[in-house]
């Protein structure tokens, strides 16, 4: 039997049982669609995180106590502002050194309140991290030196506390202490479902007083150029280790952060795809099941075809093609649904999604393979049927 003929016969058989074919395909459709969609979300998230980490500013070096590694316990920071001075001496330019001490706090203005992240920072922050202001001015060296109670609001905080007023010059209460609003950041948007505009910057000295501590959480340094980053990191870590012999320090670059995040997201994407793959497998079992039913139902047809000269292989190929056609059509439909779903998620939800060609090729290939794997047993059974018995079947 010619291949084209076999395809036609298989297609006819599927058409003859439209409802059953559609329901069988549904298992494959759901499996393929979820693989495509989840891989798209994983890929999109990874791309967005990479963009954002790169968007923090170039040649950035983050110095934190402890080791930057998945699974290690956080370390209490021994750093204080004297360490920052020491790091500034190593770097040779205090304008390239930023610090942070952060804590959650409730910000109030009049009757409105907003739980947000309060960050104690130096006046260098906008030049180290690329931050711009929509209104007003940023903190100055004088603000930091005198622990002035002034605050720069993230766009979300400004919107929450002052929905119908200009926040500039207004008072906000942070952890019960009043601050004057001097500036509002340009919105950054969301990343990984986190609102990056939900923050308030105050002078690090004011923050330390607010929380009754001399510590800071970490130091960020903007290296003059890419070549110097690693060497600069080593020198900073050496200096800090000399000052705090009991603590280990890490200096990490954006590339290292990207690497770690990429690993985590890669694993996450893999796990999601595997779960979706299981549903594809279940769909394959459904195909196998329905093919066995189909073979039984068409036993007489098989008997007749054999009587008029069909070889066992002809019958086997016919049923195998039927299974492959089921999963291939299901696979294509699932791909279309997955791509559509990914575009929809990307457009209307904060979750990013990016279609990759390899995921489409993989999903389709796997669905066709599922058809072959789960079609072989029913096809062999059909091919081996004894024509005499088959013709007698009811």
């Amino acid at each position, binding site marked *: *039997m*010619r291949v084209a*003929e076999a395809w036609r016969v298989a297609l*006819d058989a599927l058409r*003859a049982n439209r409802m059953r074919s559609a329901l069988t395909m549904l298992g494959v459709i759901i499996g393929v669609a979820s693989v495509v969609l989840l891989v798209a979300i994983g890929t999109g998230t990874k791309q967005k995180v990479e963009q954002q980490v790169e968007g923090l500013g170039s040649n950035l070096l983050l110095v934190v106590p402890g080791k930057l590694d998945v699974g290690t316990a956080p370390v209490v920071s021994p750093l204080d502002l004297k360490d920052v001075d020491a790091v500034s001496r190593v770097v040779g330019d205090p304008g390239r050194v930023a610090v942070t001490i952060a804590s959650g706090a409730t910000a109030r203005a009049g009757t409105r309140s907003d739980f947000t992240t309060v960050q104690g920072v130096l006046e260098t922050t906008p030049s180290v991290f690329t931050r711009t202001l929509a209104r007003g001015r940023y903190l100055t060296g004088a603000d930091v030196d005198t622990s002035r109670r002034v605050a720069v609001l993230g766009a979300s905080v400004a919107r929450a506390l002052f929905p119908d007023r200009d926040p500039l010059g207004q008072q906000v209460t942070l952890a019960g202490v009043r601050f004057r609003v001097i500036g509002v950041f340009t919105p950054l948007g969301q990343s990984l479902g986190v609102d990056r505009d939900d923050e308030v910057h105050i002078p690090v000295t004011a923050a330390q007083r607010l929380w009754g501590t001399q510590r800071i959480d970490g130091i960020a340094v903007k290296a003059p150029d890419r070549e110097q980053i690693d060497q600069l990191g080593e020198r900073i870590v050496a200096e800090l280790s000399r000052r705090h012999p009991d603590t280990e320090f890490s200096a990490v670059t954006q590339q290292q952060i990207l690497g770690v995040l990429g690993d985590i997201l890669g694993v996450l994407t893999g796990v999601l795809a595997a779960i979706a793959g299981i549903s594809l497998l279940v769909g394959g079992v459904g195909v196998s099941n329905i093919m066995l039913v189909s073979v039984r139902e068409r036993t*007489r*047809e098989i*008997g*007749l*075809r*054999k*009587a*008029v*000269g*069909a*070889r*066992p*292989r*002809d019958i086997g190929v016919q049923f195998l093609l039927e299974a492959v056609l089921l999963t291939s059509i299901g696979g294509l439909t699932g791909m279309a649904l997955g791509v559509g779903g990914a575009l929809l998620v990307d457009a209307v939800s904060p979750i990013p999604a990016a279609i990759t060609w390899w995921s489409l090729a993989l999903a389709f290939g796997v669905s066709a393979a599922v058809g072959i794997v789960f079609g072989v047993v029913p096809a062999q059974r059909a091919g081996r049927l*004894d*024509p*005499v018995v088959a*013709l007698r079947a009811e």
Partner: protein
Amino acid sequence: MTVAAIEAVDVSRTYELDGVSVPALRGVSLTIDQGEYVAVIGPSGSGKSTLMHLLGGLDRPTGGRLVIGGRDVATLTAPELATLRNETIGFVFQAFHLLPRTSAVDNVALPLVYRGVGARQRRERAAAMLGRVGLGHRLGHRPNQLSGGEQQRVAIARALVTDPTVLLADEPTGNLDSATGDAVLELLERLNAESGVALVMVTHDPEVAARARRRIAVRDGLIRSDTVHDRPLSGGDGRPETLDAAPSAEPRSASGSGPGHPSGGFGGATGATGRLPLSGGQSAPGGAG
């Protein structure tokens, strides 16, 4: 000089059912010659269906020697046997066995699919064959749009579209009323006479069997009688006949395909005259080869 279409020598078939051996055929010898008209008659359970399956290459004997179209069945693989069926045998079943949801012309063309004939030529040959059975106006009809008689005629066209040497009909009128059944039998007999295809008809009905020149009675897995009749008996004369007691019957040797070939000496009803080969000369391999 013609070669036997089918030759069976001491053929037996035993089924194994749950470890118990059940003999369905217990040593049967017979020869079907080119162009013959043979009725195989016997009650249900006699082994006549088993015999037909063996003669058609649908099943293999468990003992003896079975040669179909010059090829010993025992030496053939399953695919080779399938090809042999396709080339030499045409089947007509009691239950028609047409593919539902498939047009008459495509049903008829089905055996050609397994012969690798292209779609266009298949349809042409199938349409021509449907014309020969009087259904040239029903090409696109599906089985459920046809009467029982028409369905059986489609099945006959399907059996003959490959130009087989033997047409095996298993109770071809069993699902039809007597008038329609008669028409189907007349069609089969006409095709047998015209194209020279051997017609082997399995039936339990003595009236149907009485139409054939040669009648083989099967009982308990054995051939009880194998007789050739000078003139076909009329089934409707109200005189029930037992075949083995038919007055004009003369015994026939089971392996009698030699010089004393019967078709020459019995009025030429199915003789060489009046044969109209369907195409080429395949219907008469003795002459073509």
